[in-house]
């Protein structure tokens, strides 16, 4: 038996023994943190088992608590988890964004301090990039960090900080150098949220939820050992992290199985049949809707294949400027998907609460509103098209 077959069998065995029954059903994913909340006791067990094994971050080095798996082994792990319907044990900005950046840019000591905690879900991280005056033009940011003995003193304001009200720590872009040239005075600093100088105020979204906040720093402090990379050289790290973020968001375009397997569809067609009915050939009766769904399914499939091809192609590892292509296309696809669902469901998709709407219908309405942020968060569609023009197509300024 080949090593890889052995690995598959061992993985099957391990999952069978350790993945609790409740975690083999669809449901919410835990975000960890210093004071984690679990919607079911099995969630805690699952996180602990996966964290110990390093399989929350399967391909990160073992030295820092990761799973140390190869590309091929990771693929098997994902396939086997998919096969039993296992949900991820942990979701976090640490896994998707901060961790990969730390692995590339942090010192050995910093990695030892932060990476294992990301793997085990011990710290909930949030992202302090955007400011009221600095959104797309991120490098104009003005939150300041000034040296004071072994510490930095931080003053300023961030905005749109997702989950800042739950987070334990924030990875932050701060100005440590002069304003001009603006890219060269930025540093990448880790700040503890649990201190008097940090205040958060939730902001309500059009979907009715408050997933993000304003974050205020008033003489907040962070030890100098929390500065990642060199002082005033944080922009390189910031951009790299954005590529990881964009790759992560790309995947959303595929949210409901883009039909990677034979006969699998996106679920839109079933929804369409349910609300719009079928004709004598069992086709979706509304032919305009049917065409829109088919076009979306075809593009999702092409997009899924593209992400797969790019992963195969990225022999040098890590995302590149092509991450912008994925972010742009994936988020636009996801928005379009909800628009099509709304069209399929008619007024049943336009309830805000209560009767005569089912919880599933109300959830789709809220998700439709949430999806509008997809092409804004992590860099807008326009900004990603700029990146493609300049970095990939080399069009001039």
């Amino acid at each position, binding site marked *: 038996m080949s090593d890889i077959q052995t690995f598959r069998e061992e993985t099957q065995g391990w999952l069978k023994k350790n993945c609790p029954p409740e975690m083999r059903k669809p449901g919410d994913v835990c975000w960890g943190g210093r004071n984690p909340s679990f919607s079911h006791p099995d969630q805690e067990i699952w996180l602990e088992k996966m964290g110990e094994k390093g399989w929350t971050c399967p391909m990160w080095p073992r030295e820092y608590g990761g799973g140390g798996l190869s590309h091929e082994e990771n693929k098997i792990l994902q396939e086997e988890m998919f096969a039993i319907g296992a949900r991820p044990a942990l979701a976090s900005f640490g896994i998707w964004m901060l961790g990969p950046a730390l692995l590339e840019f942090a010192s050995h000591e910093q990695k030892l301090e932060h990476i294992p905690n990301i793997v085990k879900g011990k710290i909930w991280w949030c992202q302090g990039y955007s400011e009221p005056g600095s959104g797309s033009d991120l490098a104009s940011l003005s939150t300041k960090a000034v040296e004071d003995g072994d510490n930095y003193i931080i003053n300023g304001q961030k905005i749109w900080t997702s989950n800042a009200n739950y987070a334990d720590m924030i990875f932050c872009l701060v100005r440590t150098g002069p304003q001009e040239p603006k890219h060269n005075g930025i540093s990448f600093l880790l700040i503890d949220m649990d201190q008097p100088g940090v205040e958060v105020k939730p902001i309500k979204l059009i979907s009715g939820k408050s997933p993000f906040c304003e974050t205020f720093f008033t003489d907040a402090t962070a030890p100098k050992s929390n500065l990642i990379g060199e002082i005033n050289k944080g922009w390189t790290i910031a951009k790299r992290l954005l590529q990881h973020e964009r790759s992560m968001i790309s995947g959303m375009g595929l949210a409901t199985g883009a039909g990677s397997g034979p006969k699998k569809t996106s679920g839109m067609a079933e929804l369409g049949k349910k609300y719009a009915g079928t004709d004598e050939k069992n086709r979706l009766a509304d032919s305009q809707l049917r065409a829109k769904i088919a076009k979306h399914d075809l593009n999702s499939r092409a997009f899924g294949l593209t992400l797969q091809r790019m992963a195969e192609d990225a022999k040098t590892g890590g995302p590149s400027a*092509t991450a912008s292509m994925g972010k742009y296309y994936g988020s636009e696809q996801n928005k379009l998907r909800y628009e099509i669902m709304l069209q399929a469901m008619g007024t049943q998709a336009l309830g805000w609460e209560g009767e005569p709407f089912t919880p599933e219908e109300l959830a789709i309405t809220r998700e439709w509103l949430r999806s509008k942020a997809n092409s804004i968060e992590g860099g807008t569609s326009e900004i990603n*098209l700029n990146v493609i023009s300049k970095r990939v197509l080399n069009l001039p300024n």
Partner: protein
Amino acid sequence: MALLFNEEQQYLKDTAKDFVQKNAPINHFRELRDSKDETGYSKELWKQMAELGWAGVLISEEYGGSDFGMVGMGGILEETGRCLVPSPLFSTALLGASLIELGGKADQKKDLLTKIAKGELTTAFALEEGSRHTPYRISTTAEKKGKNFVLNGKKTFVLDGHSADLIVLAARTSGGIEDQSGISLFLIDPNSTGLQRKRTHMVDSRNASEIHLKDVEVPETKLLGELDAGFSIIEEVLERGQIGISAEMLGNTLEAFDITLEYLKERKQFGAVIGSFQALQHRAAVMFAEIELTKSSVMGALNAVDENSNDRSRFASLAKFKAGETLHLVSSEAVQMHGGVGVTDEFDIGFFLKRSRVAEQIFGSSDYHLDRYATLSEY
């Protein structure tokens, strides 16, 4: 599923690129068009292509082919597509070889595939009868008379039909006009009495013809595959054809896009190169995204044939849908972004627009495949 060329396939594609750039750049096509060449392609060039093994890419080694499969064929078609090279590659090496491989008896295969692989025999596939792709609406008839079949009817848009040495023709031997059963395939000598072929001059200056049949007698030994059961062969050949033409269309797209990008970086207006205008940059970036999706769809579909995927039919529609949509977009935008020179005959970019619309119609437009994909997905 592999979505990148392996080393061997990449080598084949690189060789094709070199060969085409050297021996058949776009000017080669322009000269054929301007001289109103009778065959519509260069026989000398086809001979060289056959010597490189391209005529036998899909043919097994047993019959002298190189057996590189559809991925190999796709790589070559992409490169010939870049330079709009007219040649029997599609109608003979892809369609003809596939028809005979899938439908032929041992002696037919031995005889015909060997000749195709050597570049000694060209073929044409006579299927369509109307102006829109409706593969099973066949009213050309073949009636049994003694040891012969007698054929009557008319075929349209037969690629390479005016020049091919052998015509593979679909005729109705039983059933109603849209029935899938009752269709049979025949190997027909174009010089048969009662057969007339008329070259059609299409907007892309490539090679197509009408075929008129009046009491054409064909010996029963010239039946390809079983009587009344041509459907399953046609279905599979059409899918290979849809995927192959998609690879060629991807090549068309890539070249039109490259030419346009170059122009965006060199043409100046308002004291700046036009490629610095965001209105054009964003449209170029959107095209880039669509092209990446098209590459993956074509690659997935080529592999689906070689890997014998049970989802091959949907892959064929995915490839043809995406290749059609993207070539349509890029060829239109390419003309627009060139301004006035874009609509001149002297500049090559117009060739891509013309070729685009014809290629879109070959074996079903994007709309056709959108509908087919939905039907195959059961909605």
